[in-house]
Every structure is written in C-alpha cells, then in structure tokens.
C-alpha cells in the first residue's frame, strides 16, 4: 500500500527455472540477430532499432525500481547524454568512441553529484523530486538555445560511427549495446549487489544496521543506470539524425515506468516484455487512425486492472498451469 513497497502484489509470481530462462534468452538473441533476415523491410528494421533503444531505458530504470526508487527523471538523464555527445561531436569534433563515452559519463556524473542528496528521500518523495528535476532539465534544454538550439533542436546529426550509414548496420550496433546493457543489469540483479539492493528496498534501516553502506550503493546504482540511459540518448540522436527536448520530457520518463509496470516491475523479464509491448502496440493499432491513442489508454487500464503484477503474470500463470498438468499426468 505504501510507496516504499509498490510492487508487493507481484511477489510470489512463479517463474520458469534456469533452463527455461536460458532457452528464452537464446531465443530472444536469435530473434534479435535474425530479425532483419526474416523481414528485410526498412520499417521493421527501424522498429527493431527503436525496441533495442527503449530496452536500455526500461531495463536501467528497472535497476532503480528494484532498489525501491521510482525515478521520473530518467528521460532527463537520457537527454543530457544525448546532448553531450551531439554537441561534442558537432561543435568540437570529438571522434567516435569518445563522444559515446562522454554521453554515458555526463549523466553518471550528474547522478553522482545529486544522488547523495536526493537518494536520501524514499518512496513517493523521491518520485516527486525526480519529476521536478526532470522538468528543470527540460526547461534548461528549451531555454538555453545558444547551446542546444532551443525547442527547434539540432538537425543533421552525423552517423555515430563514421561510414556506418545504413539502417541495418545501426540496428546491429543498437542491439549489441542494448544486449550488453541488459546483460549487465541481469548480472547486477542476480549477484550480491542485487541482494543488497533488495535489502535496501525492503528496509533501509535494517540494511544499514547490517553494515551495508546504503547511500554509497544507492548512488552507485543510480550512476550506472544514468550512464546506460545516457547511451540510449546518444543512440537516439544518431538514429533520428536529430535531437530536440521533446523526446526527453516527463512523458518519456513515465513511458519507461509504464513499460516496467505493464511488463511486471518485479522481474527483469517484465521490463523487457513491457518495453517490447509498448513499442509494438501503437504499431499494431496503426490501422485504427485517430483511435490509436484511445485504444492504447484503454489497454493500459485493462492490463493494470486485470494483471496487477504485469504481463509476466501471464508467463507465471502459464508455467504454473504446465506444472499442474505434469503433476496430474504423473499421478
């Protein structure tokens, strides 16, 4: 009921065992690599690139959610990363790997500076303070037009890697970076730091009493998540050859949160499923022009009313049904 434990409803969802997870990961990777070979249509390649990019934001926000912190400034960090890299490249001719690295480091640095202050807040207060911070970043990007081009943005962003111009090549680059990010998130969550994060979410005071440097862990995780979403910002700008503040508003931050909750905020699979679902759904509804956003809203309501634990509940329910079936078969 309290914001400190927003996802209690989803706990206890039974998920498949290790071998099934491994099979799922293999299938997902095979699909990601084979996707352009199956359907060579440029539209589907762009769609795939968008999914790969949004996955970075959704899974890095997932990292924060698992620590019990709902950030509504995630898109602002994405914007800071994107603008840093674009400005370095276009104004100061910084070559390829360094602008991407700077685009990841800038938001991480900001996270390191403001993290120790705002991460002391928990639950709804953290959500609110990040919401306001995100608004400040959006205002700055819009108002500081001598640097950022204001609301018009910056046109003609060159390809990220010189010579890498085709959509297909960019797709594979995006998938590679996205997969590395998701793998890192998975590694963090399953390792010791994941258990430390869970203990912070469940009870900060108890975690501190057990000798966990709570603030240091929180700030580190916050910086890692910010660096990742910063990279999404860089890729986003180079994907569209264009950057403007409207992509980094609280709407996009909420989008990341919706992806997590629709998918199921208690499992990394949920964040992944939610991101894929939320990118594909508007495309599926494209035939119903005008009704697209309305149906989208109604589907959000229905999923949340029926599946409070998110879409992963479906996997869980299916798995449990399969187990039941096997047990009955064996008996």
């Amino acid at each position, binding site marked *: 009921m309290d914001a400190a434990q927003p996802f209690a409803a989803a706990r206890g969802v039974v998920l498949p065992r290790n071998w099934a997870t491994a099979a799922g990961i293999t299938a997902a990777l095979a699909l990601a690599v084979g996707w352009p070979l199956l359907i060579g249509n440029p539209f589907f390649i762009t769609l795939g690139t968008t999914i790969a990019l949004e996955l970075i934001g959704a899974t890095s926000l997932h990292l924060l959610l698992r620590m019990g912190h709902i950030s509504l400034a995630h898109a602002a960090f994405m914007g800071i990363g994107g603008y840093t890299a674009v400005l370095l490249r276009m104004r100061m001719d910084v070559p390829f790997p360094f602008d991407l690295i700077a685009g990841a480091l800038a938001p991480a640095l900001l996270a390191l500076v403001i993290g120790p202050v705002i991460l002391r807040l928990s639950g709804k207060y953290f959500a609110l*303070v990040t919401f306001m911070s995100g608004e400040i970043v959006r205002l700055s990007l819009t108002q500081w037009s001598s640097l950022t081009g204001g609301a018009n943005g910056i046109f003609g962003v060159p390809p990220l890697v010189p010579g890498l111009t085709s959509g297909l090549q960019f797709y594979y680059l995006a998938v590679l970076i996205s997969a590395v990010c998701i793998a890192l998130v998975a590694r963090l969550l399953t390792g010791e730091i994941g258990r430390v994060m869970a203990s912070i979410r469940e009870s900060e005071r108890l975690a501190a009493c057990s000798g966990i440097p709570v603030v240091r862990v929180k700030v580190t995780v916050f910086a890692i998540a910010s660096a990742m979403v910063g990279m999404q910002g860089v890729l986003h700008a180079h994907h569209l050859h264009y950057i403007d503040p409207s992509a980094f508003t609280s709407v996009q931050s909420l989008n990341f949160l919706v992806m997590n909750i629709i998918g199921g905020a208690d499992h990394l699979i949920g964040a992944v499923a939610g991101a894929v679902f939320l990118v594909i759904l508007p495309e599926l509804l494209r035939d119903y022009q*005008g009704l697209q956003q309305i149906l989208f*809203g109604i589907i959000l309501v229905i999923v*949340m009313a029926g599946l409070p634990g998110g879409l992963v509940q479906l996997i869980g329910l299916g798995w449990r049904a399969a187990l039941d079936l096997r047990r009955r078969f064996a008996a």
Partner: protein
Amino acid sequence: MLTPAIIGQILVNGASLSAIYVLIALGFTLLFGIMRVVNFAHGAFAMLGGYALYYLYGSLGLPYVLAVPAAAGIVAAAGLALEVLVFRWFYNRLMPGMIGSLGVNLALVFSAVLIWDVYERSIPPAFVDIVRLGGVLLPLDRLVVTGIAAFVLLLFWLLMTRTRQGLAMRAAAQDVEIAEAQGIDTIRIYRLAFFIAVFMAALAGGLYAQTYSLSPFMGERPLLVAFIVVILGGMGSIPGAALGGIILGFVESILSTLYGAATSSFVSFGAVILLLVLRPWGLLGTPDTMRA
C-alpha cells in the same frame, strides 16, 4: 517600474491564478488522501470542464451563473461513470492506479482530439468591464473568477468541517478500516469524494479555459500545477493544498510579470525541489511515520 497599475495587475492575476490552482489541487489531494490514487487524469477532467463551459455558455448561451456550475456538474456526473468502470479497481493500489489513470488520461485527451480536433478555441468572456479602484485598474473577469472559486472553496470547507459526510470523508482519509468499523459506507464516501474532486477540477478547467484558451491538451498545465501545489502543501493535506495554491499563484504572477515565464518556472521548480529535500512532507503535511 512598480507603478500602482502593475501592482494591481499582479495582485489580480495572482488572486485569480491562486483560486484556479487551489480548486485543481484540492481535488487532486482529496483523491490521494482518501483513495491513495495519484490521478493523472485530473488535467483531462479540467479539459472536459472547459469544453462543457464552451458549449453551455458559448454555444447555448445559458446565463453565466448557471452555466459555470452546470458545466462542472455534467463533467462530474460523467466522471462518476468512470469511477464505477475504472477508478474503483485502483483504490489503495498506488502503482497500478498511476498507470491506470495515465491510461484514462490518454483515452480522454485523444477522444477529445477525435471529437473536437486539436485547434484552440476560446470561450467568450463573460465580463469585459474594468473596475477602477483608487488609481488601480482591475479587470472584472479576473475578479469574478476569484469570487466564484472563493465561494466554491467556502462550500467545500463547510462540507468538510460542518457535515457528517465531511467527517466521514476525513475519517476514511485517516484510516479506511477503522472508518468501516464505525459503520461508514466507504464505497459511498469514495464516490462522493470522487464527484467533488472532479467537480472542482472541471470548474477550474472552465475558468482556466476562459482566461487562457481551450484545446484537448490544455490539461497538461493544470496537472503539473496540481502536482507542484500538492508537493508544496504536503500530499493529502487539504489546508496544505489551499496554502500551496495561493503561494504558487502569487509567486508565478509576480515573477512572470517582472521577469518572464521561464524564470518563474525555474524558481518555482527549484523551490519545490529544495522543499522536498529539506521537508519532504510539505509545508502543512505530517511526516510519514510509516516510511521505511
């Protein structure tokens, strides 16, 4: 540069902005305080209030004193249908409720786009006179907006403090289970609170749309305002929402008249962040002892 005319303008703008902000924020904080719903559709209800006033006053030409409450009443009645269909599934479930109301917001805003298109309309002003008060020129319509809002707020205050219904609402806000154990019909109380919250949002939306302009996306600003005001005053605190609305309305009026709208936004956002860090429970809220 601070002539009496400018001071008068600042005061009147501040008063009418405050009045609108308090109306929006009170409903928002009521829903959060009683049902634990962060209502992202609050701005959409304000937008619907604007369109209702547009038709009742602008097209049908009902008398202004009748059109204003009737418009808000129609939206609030329609809101009750949404309460039964959607919102009651999300009471006391913070995260699903947030996403659910976001979905409602999307559906309402884009239904409005479908029906009324995206272009901006204007509701004809009810009063064009200017009152001269000791060398200060005061536009009458702003004074009327302030008056209407003050009257509704007074009614709301009387309802909350002087009636059994208000007492029941305050009890449900404090502890739902204990309230139920005392024989309070919480489902009815929830419905009443929802009706009042939507009524005030729609009323504020109508006045806001008449002062500025009317479009399907006009709800974004009132929603943002509701957020800021409620943080300022303290989540779920009713006097806090009133105080926060008045502070924000006047600060915005002073800063945007003297330094421009961008500065005004920077200062108010910055101040709210500072407040959240130093005193997260807001000016008049109480520290959340359940916080881990």
